[in-house]
């Protein structure tokens, strides 16, 4: 017990130290008021979207609806800026001040569940019909659930593709690898573009894993062996993975992509600086505003093992230290009603996790015949969850470094071997994350 206490103190100090170092000067919004997620029948809820007023308002609306729908429980919202949200949660966990309910980025769910931040959820039938990629599971238990998801896709001008003699692919017959390569070569040959494809290589952080590991998976590789999640050997450095890496580097050497893309991909496409933009459903609204009917939404390419996109966005869960789990569960169940989920999805401009009539009434664009239907279809058909293992944060940063080095010209095989060694050593250090 004593050891545990000093361990907590240690972790708290480390967290404080680590946060203070790079973010010195950042205002300390992390100061949590109250004990462990409120007392009695009033509970606290944390969300990352202080910087997104529309989404925050939608969340707040659910909370006030819940508070007025019954008189037993009371939920209070605390919003954090996204940039420092994870740090705040880690620091709060170390000092035992986590709220009852909080949202988190999907790939963090297994890590936080493993660290005992989260408690498993028992939501019963509320999860029926939920988009599968919005359910955060680990070790066979549900720990989090999201109201929406996003989908990767490519965008181009129909006129540009047709002029270069390129077939506009559909969700049922996406481009194959050969077709994609030929299309890029054809666009390059026109001489209009320094680099016809914008892969978004100027992005940082989680984007690299989110955007490029599905390409790796479509080549037949993966971030880790998904049978037992104990080693990346063979998955991340096998022949398929090396093919993926060689292809990625080839894009740079052939001048098909910029090693570092422009800061504003949407603007580059609109201004004809690039021909095809690799982005996500969130880019659809601004692009259709500027390109109108000429905008083509291109589903992910099939590199051999089927088209793939990453699944999972922000999801809600309940903490282990929550003193009133009944209240938290009641709130989560309440919030999963289609009209509430859809209202958040609409506010965030994302794919609603439910396609029930009530949700479609709020945003018909994701329903049959709607302009955004293709994203819902891509998500339902091709979404592959990022490996649901507590090792994910480590895997993701390791993969990002490896991919950046490969694009910069490092040897594919030895770079991937090194990444595998790092990942395997980390899993061993953590006793297999069991």
């Amino acid at each position: 017990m004593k050891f545990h206490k000093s361990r907590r103190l240690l972790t708290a100090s480390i967290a404080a130290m680590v946060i203070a170092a790079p973010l010195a000067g950042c205002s300390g919004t992390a100061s949590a008021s109250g004990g462990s997620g409120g007392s009695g029948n009033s509970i606290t809820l944390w969300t990352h979207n202080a910087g997104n007023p529309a989404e925050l308002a939608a969340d707040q609306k659910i909370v006030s609806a819940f508070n007025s729908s019954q008189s037993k429980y009371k939920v209070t919202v605390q919003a954090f800026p996204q940039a420092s949200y994870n740090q705040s949660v880690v620091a709060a966990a170390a000092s035992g001040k986590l709220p009852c309910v909080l949202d988190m980025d999907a790939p963090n769910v297994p890590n936080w569940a493993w660290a005992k931040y989260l408690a498993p959820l028992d939501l019963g039938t509320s999860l029926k019909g939920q988009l599968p990629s919005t359910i955060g599971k680990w070790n066979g238990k549900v720990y989090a659930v999201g109201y929406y998801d996003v989908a990767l896709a490519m965008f181009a001008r129909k006129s540009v593709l047709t002029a270069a003699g390129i077939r506009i692919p559909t969700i049922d017959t996406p481009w194959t690898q050969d077709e994609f390569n030929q299309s890029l070569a054809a666009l390059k040959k026109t001489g209009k573009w320094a680099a016809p494809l914008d892969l978004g290589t100027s992005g940082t952080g989680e984007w690299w894993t989110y955007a490029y590991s599905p390409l790796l998976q479509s080549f037949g590789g993966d971030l880790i062996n998904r049978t037992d999640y104990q080693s990346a050997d063979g998955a991340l450095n096998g022949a398929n993975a090396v093919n993926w890496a060689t292809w990625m580097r080839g894009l740079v050497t052939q001048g098909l992509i910029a090693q570092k893309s422009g800061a504003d991909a949407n603007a580059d496409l609109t201004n004809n600086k690039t021909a095809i933009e690799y982005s996500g459903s969130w880019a659809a609204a601004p692009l259709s505003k500027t390109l109108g009917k000429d905008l083509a939404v291109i589903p992910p390419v099939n590199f051999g093992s089927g088209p793939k996109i990453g699944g999972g966005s922000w999801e809600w869960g309940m903490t282990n230290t929550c003193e009133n789990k009944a209240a938290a569960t009641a709130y989560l169940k309440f919030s999963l009603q289609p009209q509430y989920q859809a209202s958040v999805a609409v506010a965030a401009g994302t794919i609603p996790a439910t396609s029930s009539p009530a949700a479609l009434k709020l945003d018909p664009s994701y329903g049959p015949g709607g302009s955004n239907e293709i994203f819902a279809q891509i998500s339902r058909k091709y979404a592959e969850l990022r490996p649901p293992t507590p090792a994910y944060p480590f895997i993701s940063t390791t993969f990002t470094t490896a991919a950046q080095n490969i694009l910069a010209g490092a040897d594919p095989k030895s770079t991937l071997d090194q990444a595998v060694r790092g990942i395997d050593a980390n899993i061993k250090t953590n006793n297999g994350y069991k």
Partner: protein
Amino acid sequence: MVLIHPSRAETAPSVKKPSPPRKVNRGRRKESLTALGMVAPAVLLLALFIFVPAALAFVLAFTNAQLISPNPIGFVGLTNFIQLFQDPVFYRSLLNTLYFAAVVVPVQGGAALGLAILVNTKTRGTSFFRTVYFLPVVTSMVVVSMLWLFMYQQNGLINELIHRLTLGLVTGPDWLNNPATSMPAIILMSVWQGVGFHMVIWLSGLQTIAPDLHEAASLDGVSAWQRFRFVTWPGLRNTRALVLVTITIQALSLFTQVSVMTQGGPLYSTSTVVYDAVQTGYQQQQTSYASAISLVFFALVLIVAAIQRFLTREKA
């Protein structure tokens, strides 16, 4: 020491009057209490944010602590250090850090001295130039890094300038995406940002040199170089030590520019020890390993500072 000195002087002539020294002592004690009270806030903050984390890092480096983990912490001896000394990224980061310091210390120190001498003249408009040179210092490093990030782009301001000035003969490289130019690019920008600060320190040093020395020198008919070499340079002895130590420590802890502009890339060409520590400790959650890196870094800074202190010591 302060307490002993006056009482000894006091007791020597008058042995019969023991009371005054005691009074003095009491007064002194009161004074030192006040002094203690006054340094307390600073000491407390130093302890909280420097000593405690440093001690923690020292202990954690020998454990298997993770940032997020349900497992208890256990001591693992030298495992982290063995892993560290086999890590090619760490060696690369160390080399990059030393490379950065080896260039920045003389270049930034020299350029700052040059600027200081330039703005030390008594002509109109010097305070304007002082302000201009000092402006980058008061601008946040993150902001400066963002601006230079745009300037260093393939078709950014710097390449555009090179292109125009050479009448289109030379096309600049993709500065930050080329392993050969990324570090020099960061060095140039860091020197530009930091030079104003050390200019001010040199300037204060220059102004402590008595003007009659310069006057005497010019009466003797010395050249400008001789005046610098034999009057100015010896007069800057203490300032020199200060500038040297501050630039070195600042250079060895290179982080912000790398974090904003290159994230250690391409191909680890700009990875530094501090960046490596933050990356492994926070992004990869390996607290103990990052502590080991910090510990080695601490030892490194200590050694460098000790050598510098030895070289610039007061020769009795």
